[in-house]
């Protein structure tokens, strides 16, 4: 049984998911699932119950805010961290008010990511 914290990674970019999976693995996390939009993230969250969700904001069909709301409706204790390069300050504020635990700016700094995610898990 793995003791690594498990992560669901939600981003519409396959390239970003590849990059972030490598960085998360190097930092001691286990990426147990991926999603390409907010709707898929809600479904995958129900199946996998990960310790953490990394959620992009700007995605087609169902964006990060909708994904965040859906996951928190399914599990109010869910630990969702927003990941974005283009989020307006008002979007980030709204996500934090909705219940996101923190925010990470792209391009990802692995040291910041590790610190933030471990802080959210503590």
């Amino acid at each position, binding site marked *: 049984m793995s003791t690594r914290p498990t992560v669901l990674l939600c981003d519409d*970019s396959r390239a970003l998911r*590849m990059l972030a999976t490598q960085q998360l693995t190097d930092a001691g996390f286990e990426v147990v699932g991926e999603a390409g939009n907010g709707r898929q993230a809600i479904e995958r969250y129900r199946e996998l119950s990960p310790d953490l969700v990394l959620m992009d904001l*700007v995605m*087609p069909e169902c964006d990060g805010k909708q994904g965040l709301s859906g996951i928190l409706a399914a599990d109010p204790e869910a630990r969702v961290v927003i990941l974005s390069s283009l989020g307006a300050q008002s979007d980030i504020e709204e996500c934090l008010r909705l219940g996101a635990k923190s925010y990470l700016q*792209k391009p990802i700094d692995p040291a910041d990511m590790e610190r933030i995610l471990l802080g959210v898990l503590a």
Partner: protein
Amino acid sequence: MAAKFFGQFLLEKGVISAQQLLDALDAQRASNPTLGELAQQRGLLTAAQAKRVNERQRVEDRRFGDIAEDMGLLDSTQLGELLAAQKAQRKLFGEILVEQHTLDSARLETELAAHRQEQEDAARALGETVSAHPLSDLAASAINTSVRLFPRLFGSQCQPAQALDSAQALAAYPVGALVRIEADQPMAVGLACTADTAMRLATAFLSIPQEKCDDELALDALGEVVNVLMGYVVRDALSDDAQYRAFPPETRTPLAQAMGASPCALAIGMSSQLGDFALLVCR
């Protein structure tokens, strides 16, 4: 006239062949180890530590040595020694051409002077075009951000080359990504290149070999790069509390078409060691 790297200038003039250019670039690369490589050779850093410093460099506007020092991995004495060793080993591209007997010293001096003149002419022409354009601030932000981000995202350099004055000029770059922002003053920033350049950019961005990358992944990576670029441009152009809405990268519409459809657009040709590309800014 477009600004070019010296090697590209010589190649296009027919002064050196493609193979001579590649040989000289390989030799230059071997003579210019990065600080991280030197530190590993001397047993001061492990590969994992150097990788962590490189990853921080992707998001910070700081030098490798400064970050390594802050992280407690190198002290100032070690850093000073590494920098001195790096400087002692470094060879200029022209020096290597002479060493490899591709050019003699006199020809090198002549070509360097011609290249310098062309660079100055290109910079003047580009500056005049950009500064006279209504999107000059946005274009300057996109150019400066690209020049700053390129080494961190791709481990390579880029520089502005020339203004591309029409959508037809962009047609040479059929692969591209465009990110739009809906705001009081909507804006869009795009990057276009050839399929080969997209592949080289993607493999450098993702640090993967070419056989692990396909055209779709390369295009997706290009979209992610433009997302990051736009993130910086937005922070330059809009106030912190500005209301705006960002859209996912558009990768299916050629940028030439997007430029043609925009009421106000400016495209800038860029030179890079990974291939030429174009930046497009639109309102």
